[in-house]
């Protein structure tokens, strides 16, 4: 960075890249994220794409965006309102300007602000000229023109040349925030190794953008966001879907089991199938089934045969899998069911996030069919959550539902890399034949109440099981009333007993004197934490707890809830955890609910918490 420009220090920045679906905004965001990680900030990201594959160019539904929040301290959310908005066309501006922080910076590609394009999205006049953006620092730049100029020498068509404008924008913003671009240059080198002209054009655009910032007068200031003080260790940036996939791979390795994924593609879960299909070398077999029912059925079959059966889906798919999960409850076999929740009901908002499948996970099966439910709280946490789900499934011989959501799936954050050696092993404990005793497929481990897992292939353990009620011990079909009552309670007790193997819920209550407890589950962890921080910064006392286990609850949860005057449950649904807490603990838990297909904002929650604290005199 030359001295000719002044720099300003910031603690945190939120940037949103927005453009047409074809403009490469996700890639741009990914690169900026990697640069930011390389630089050493803490960060959190949130991509946002349209439901359409590629809506007509220049339309509002076609806008795709990527937001990154980075800071010199540990942050919890991808940020509420961008400080900087990059808008590659009028549609992107229109769709996103409302979110821009007052006084924030808008960088737009002036080239695209033609009458035709403006009209297409309903702008009556040109916002770059009509003064409507006067609340913002507007940089209207001919990004397209500058890019085309910069890459002239590589002999690309004008269309191809202009395609590199996202790299120009990346360069410019990288300069603004002092990001190192070497990594991105290397990346482009690899990505376009087969197409040198395109590679060179992209690199040139990137460099030109960077230099444009440095030389142009309109950018007077660049910003410094110091590296965060982060616990020492190795890190990488990771999305929830990737972390979850790795968790499944790791669970296979830790248990020594083959992994079999039976899945049917569905947004936003498909990427787990995509990722896992690459890892055959790790003993992972993936099966793209004809539908969700076949996916879970094949997974259950694989579990019967001695693999770790896994199935991935989203809400509508989970609805279809209910009957088969119920069979898994009866068969008492390991099965990991992953639901990456999206906006519902029905097809709903397929690309948006929501937490509205909790009660479906709890109850979406006929009969008394209890199933442990586990949830991930951040993108990187998906790794641990997946291992935990597999641990429970294998140890207790039961289907387990693991809840992620659309935000976790695609959002990313730095992940403190685990040391593989230190990850706990999972013991499948297969049954062995004992010539002196008859094999009882429904005998119980006294500790876990788990039954023996005896995949085919071992002489002496031949047995037949099925979905009809079975006699305790033998597993024979039984219509005996007392046995049925016993077995129903036994299956419930087995699931309840898992509580003994899970950590108590921890409360973050800095001085231990808060009267208000905020409790959540899943991806609201970040926003709730950020909201609590704001309340505390404003001088209030507020406690936070977050649940990994939704069924069974941690053993101390009742006590924890009872220790507070008010219990607040923010959820991206109409109050599903809240109703479970109320039913279980008779606590007058209050909801804070928004079902907008978007994560909560930290400011919104902070505001709400502050108001509550003021009322309570906290």
């Amino acid at each position, binding site marked *: 960075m030359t001295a000719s420009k002044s720099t300003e220090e910031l603690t945190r920045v939120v940037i949103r890249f927005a453009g047409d679906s074809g403009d490469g905004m996700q890639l741009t965001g990914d690169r900026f994220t*990697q640069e930011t*990680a*390389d630089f*050493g900030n803490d960060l959190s990201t949130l991509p946002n794409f349209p439901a359409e594959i590629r809506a007509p160019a220049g339309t509002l539904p076609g806008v795709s965006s990527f937001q990154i929040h980075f800071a010199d301290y540990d942050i919890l959310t991808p940020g509420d309102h961008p400080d900087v908005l990059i808008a590659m066309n009028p549609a992107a501006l229109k769709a996103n300007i409302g979110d821009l922080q007052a006084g924030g910076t808008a960088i737009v590609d002036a080239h695209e602000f033609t009458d035709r394009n403006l009209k297409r999205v309903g702008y009556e006049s040109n916002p770059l000229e009509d003064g409507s953006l006067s609340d913002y620092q507007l940089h209207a730049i001919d990004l397209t023109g500058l890019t085309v100029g910069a890459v002239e020498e590589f002999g690309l068509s004008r269309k191809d040349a202009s395609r590199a404008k996202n790299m120009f924008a990346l360069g410019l913003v990288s300069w603004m925030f002092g990001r190192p671009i070497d*990594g991105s240059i290397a990346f482009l080198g690899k990505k376009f190794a087969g197409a040198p002209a395109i590679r060179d054009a992209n690199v040139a655009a990137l460099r030109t953008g960077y230099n444009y910032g440095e030389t142009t007068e309109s950018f007077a200031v660049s910003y410094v966001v110091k590296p965060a003080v982060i*616990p*020492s*260790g*190795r*890190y*990488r940036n*990771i999305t929830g879907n990737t972390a979850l996939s*790795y968790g499944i*791979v*790791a669970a296979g390795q830790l248990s020594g089991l083959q992994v*079999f994924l*039976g899945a049917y593609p569905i947004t936003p879960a498909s990427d787990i199938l995509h990722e896992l299909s690459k*890892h*055959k*070398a*790790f*003993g992972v*077999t993936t*099966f793209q089934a004809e*539908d969700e*029912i*076949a996916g879970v*059925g*094949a*997974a*259950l*079959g*694989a*579990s019967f*045969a*001695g*693999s770790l*059966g896994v199935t991935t889906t989203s809400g509508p798919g989970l609805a279809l899998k209910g009957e*088969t999960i119920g*069979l898994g409850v009866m*068969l008492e076999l390991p099965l990991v069911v992953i639901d990456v929740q999206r906006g519902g009901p029905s097809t709903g908002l397929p690309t948006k996030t929501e937490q509205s499948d909790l009660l479906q996970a709890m109850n979406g099966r006929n009969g008394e069919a209890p199933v442990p439910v586990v949830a991930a709280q951040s993108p990187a946490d998906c790794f641990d959550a997946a291992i935990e789900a597999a641990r429970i499934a294998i140890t207790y011989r039961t289907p387990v539902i693991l809840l992620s959501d659309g935000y976790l799936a695609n959002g990313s954050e730095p992940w403190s890399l*685990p*040391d*593989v050696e230190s990850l706990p092993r999972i013991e499948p404990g297969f049954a062995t034949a004992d010539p002196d005793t008859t094999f009882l497929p429904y005998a119980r481990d006294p500790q876990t109440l788990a039954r023996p897992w005896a*995949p*085919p*292939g*071992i*002489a*002496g*353990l*031949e*047995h*037949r*099981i*099925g*979905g*009809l009620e079975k006699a305790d011990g033998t597993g*024979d*079909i039984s219509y005996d009333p007392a046995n049925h009552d016993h077995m129903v309670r036994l299956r419930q007790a087995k699931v309840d007993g898992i509580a003994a193997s899970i950590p108590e819920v921890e409360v973050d209550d800095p001085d231990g004197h808060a009267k208000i407890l905020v409790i959540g589950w899943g991806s609201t962890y970040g926003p709730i934490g950020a909201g609590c921080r704001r309340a505390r910064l404003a001088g209030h006392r507020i406690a936070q707890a977050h649940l990994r286990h939704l069924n069974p609850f941690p053993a101390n949860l009742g006590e924890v809830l009872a220790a507070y005057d008010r219990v607040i449950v923010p959820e991206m649904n109409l109050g599903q955890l809240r109703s479970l807490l109320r039913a279980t603990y008779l606590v007058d838990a209050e909801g804070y609910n928004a079902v907008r297909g978007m994560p909560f904002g930290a400011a919104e929650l902070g505001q709400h918490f502050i108001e509550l604290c003021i009322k309570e005199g906290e």
Partner: protein
Amino acid sequence: MSVDLGMPQGHGLEGVPTADGPQTRKDFSSDQEVRWCPGCGDYAILAAVQGFMPELGLRRENIVFISGIGCAARFPYYLDTYGLHSIHGRAPAIATGIATTRADLSVWVVTGDGDALSIGGNHLIHALRRNVNMTILLFNNRIYGLTKGQYSPTSEPGKVTKSTPFGSIDAPLNPLSLALGAEATFVARTIDSDRKHLTAVLSAAARHRGTSLVEIYQNCPIFNDGAFDAIKDPETRDDAIIPLVHGEPIRFGADGRLGVVRTPGGGVDIVEVDESNAGDVLVHDAHATDATTAFALSRITDGGAVRRAPIGVFRQVERPTYDDLSREQSVLAGEAPSLQALLDGPDAWTVA
């Protein structure tokens, strides 16, 4: 795409460990009391299967029977192998998971006409196209037995049942035509009451590598008695049963007086055979690459009351199986790299 890795790609049982010594039918009888109605055709099929299993010479513990729901689907309980009585219609899907992960198992699916063709139709056609190595025994009694007698997708039109008091109005599916339309590599039919034929077909089916579909005509004396009388009654059966034997002209009836010939329209027809036309009789080619003639033969049995039925193996062709190819890809993927390297990825950084 397919590479020779010395993997089991021969017959259907390659890769399944064989028994140490001779077995008997008793080895395959479980201790469970059989609970079908008196006279049910399922008994005969069970006896045939129990009698046939020792012929396979496989280790009992490497055999798995998977079923859906229905009377037929109780089958696994009665065999002293590994067994899974699953849910309605889903057995082929469940078996796909088993077969794909375990090359050392002999996988059998037992299903009914409702289980396989009504609720389970989709899983059936997808198993067939994938050619997962398993043998599907479809007990076709042309009725829903377990739910006490509603018409099924193979019932003849006009059938009066509890749910169709004015007669059913759906054209039935022909299980074999459907299977052939779904790219099946092995398609056969046999009859509950003909133990010898049943055993021969089972043997061929088990040895076929891929999904073998065996339709078994099965009498339900309670809800659809006599559905197959025409091919069982000694008076009529000779002219009704059309045995298919690969490489042999398709002749049947007393002294082979009838035969199957091609029609100018592309199908097949039945004619009285004499010296003049004996040469026209179709020689059965179960291994024809093109499934068209097998399809034509499947059409001999129309959707009404069974009056005539070819039995035997309609089609048996080789095609790589889904499970072999899946395992082949795993082998090709090589040794697992380190898990740590996977997690770290190419872009990790260190904070001191």
